[in-house]
């Protein structure tokens, strides 16, 4: 645990230097990577640790985005709106978890997939509050320059990523994380062994919701205009899952590595194969997951072992 914490500290400190580049492009990419890092790490709680293939990331993200936006519309200061969005996602995850986590495997996956659709329709129909299909404008934060604004949101995402990582590290090295591993391995055996499976699964689901909720709210402020199909996009769920699988499920750095690798690939492929980029990207990811089933992170472990001269 200490080792992981030190590595993370160095990693986050290095990332914090990125604004020195001064390039808007790198700032935007960095902020996006950190945001997806938060999404992927969050999915790791329920998908990686507990083994429940959740597609609810998009639901938490959209909920957070709209909660933050609506709160600011009613004059709540930005920071409070973000925290409030996280708390709302936390409560929503608890209620949703109690209802959905009775289902297992595909059934759970499908049920969690539908949640974002339902929320989107709800937001669409509540025109008075949310602007419906017209979308919602957010106040533009009063800042000295466009650059200062970019830096601000970059550091906010960095902080959120660091908090999410810390929560993940603490969870993985606690009774909660151990119990989740038992559930992932064999749920009924875990139950027989004294694990309160419902409580543990709902806790994992809440952890997988809260930071995504904040990320959604921060995202809304960052782009200062949101509409239902944008923030309730199922791709948020799919990408988070692919990133974790790409990086290495159940490992500490897998989600972050996966997020960085995925977005780098996406940028690269998008620039070079403009016409067919989704196809090429999909193919590369399938190959990677096929040939590195334990994710990119297993490469470093393999090299590390060789380096130890045993």
């Amino acid at each position, binding site marked *: 645990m200490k080792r992981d914490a030190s590595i993370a500290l160095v990693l986050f400190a290095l990332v914090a230097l990125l604004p020195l580049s001064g390039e808007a492009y790198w700032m935007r990419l960095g902020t996006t990577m950190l945001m997806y890092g938060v999404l992927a790490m969050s999915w790791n709680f329920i998908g990686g640790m507990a083994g429940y293939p959740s597609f609810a990331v998009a639901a938490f993200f959209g909920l957070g985005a709209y909660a933050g936006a609506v709160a600011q519309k009613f004059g709540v200061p930005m920071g409070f709106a973000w925290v409030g969005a996280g708390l709302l996602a936390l409560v929503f995850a608890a209620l949703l978890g109690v209802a959905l986590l009775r289902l297992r495997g595909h059934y759970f996956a499908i049920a969690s997939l539908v949640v974002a659709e339902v929320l989107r329709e709800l937001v669409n129909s509540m025109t008075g509050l949310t602007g419906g299909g017209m979308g919602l404008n957010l106040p533009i934060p009063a800042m000295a320059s466009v650059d200062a604004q970019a830096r601000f949101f970059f550091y906010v995402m960095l902080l959120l990523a660091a908090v999410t990582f810390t929560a993940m590290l603490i969870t993985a*090295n*606690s*009774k909660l994380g*151990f*119990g989740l*591993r*038992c559930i992932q*391995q*064999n749920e*009924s*055996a*875990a*139950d*027989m*062994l*004294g*694990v*309160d*499976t419902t409580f543990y699964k709902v806790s994992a689901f809440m952890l997988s919701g809260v930071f995504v909720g904040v990320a959604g709210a921060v995202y809304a402020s960052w782009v200062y205009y949101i509409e239902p199909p944008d923030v309730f996009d199922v791709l948020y769920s799919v990408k988070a899952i692919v990133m974790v699988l790409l990086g290495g499920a159940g490992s500490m750095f897998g989600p972050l590595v996966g997020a960085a690798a995925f977005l780098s690939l996406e940028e690269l492929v998008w620039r070079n194969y403009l016409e067919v980029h989704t196809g090429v990207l999909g193919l590369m990811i399938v190959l990677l997951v096929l040939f590195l089933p334990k994710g990119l992170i297993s490469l470093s472990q393999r090299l590390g072992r060789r380096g130890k001269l045993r």
Partner: protein
Amino acid sequence: MSALLELSSVTRRFGGLRAVSDVTLSVPQGEVLGLIGPNGAGKTTLVNVITGVHPASAGKVRFAGEDITRVRPYQAARRGIARTFQIVQPFPGMTVLENVAAAAMFAGGLSYGQRARDEALQHLRFVGLAEVANSNAAALTLAMRKRLEFAKGLAMRPKLLLLDEVNAGLNAAEVDQALELIRAIAARGVTVLIIEHLMKVVLSLCSRIAVLHHGELIAAGAPQAIIEDPRVIQAYLGKRYARAQAGAHG
């Protein structure tokens, strides 16, 4: 002796099937009770009723003086009811030590950390698995996995240990080892209910035997009385067994 476990008129239905039918049975503290009966008699179902996996459709289960008819499996585990599975179920992706430590933490009430691991290792020494403590649980042989089940059961600090065919699939030498282990566990004061097809094992371990047939308790009593009971011979032991017994007696 006060009764640790009391079943009163327990019935468990699966659709139209009465897998356990109106069973009344009490197990005193410290007893080693054998539960026998033909395939499909309802033995495993009775264990599932006691542990809350398939709660009773009717009747009451009391444990240590409290009503546990409706408790969930994890609650039964925390109250001190441990079971082994007819089909062994380790956490395959964890080490042998972690498997036992999980039992010590979640049912045994220890917190996460070194103490749970130390205690797990003690139990592994007791069942003779200390050498493989850090191996993957999936890599164990069947006999070792059964012993792992014992270690997990002990780590739960049970008052009552339910053993469901722990000897199935073991060779004669392995069965003898398991017998030793069960005796040692009983000697610690743990009440044991053992489901077993090998009469040799039942007779050498149990102070009392209960017989299930089509979900009903058809007999319960001292081993000698049970093997001579005509209903038990008819339903389970069979004529050949009776004749062999008669021959052995003279």
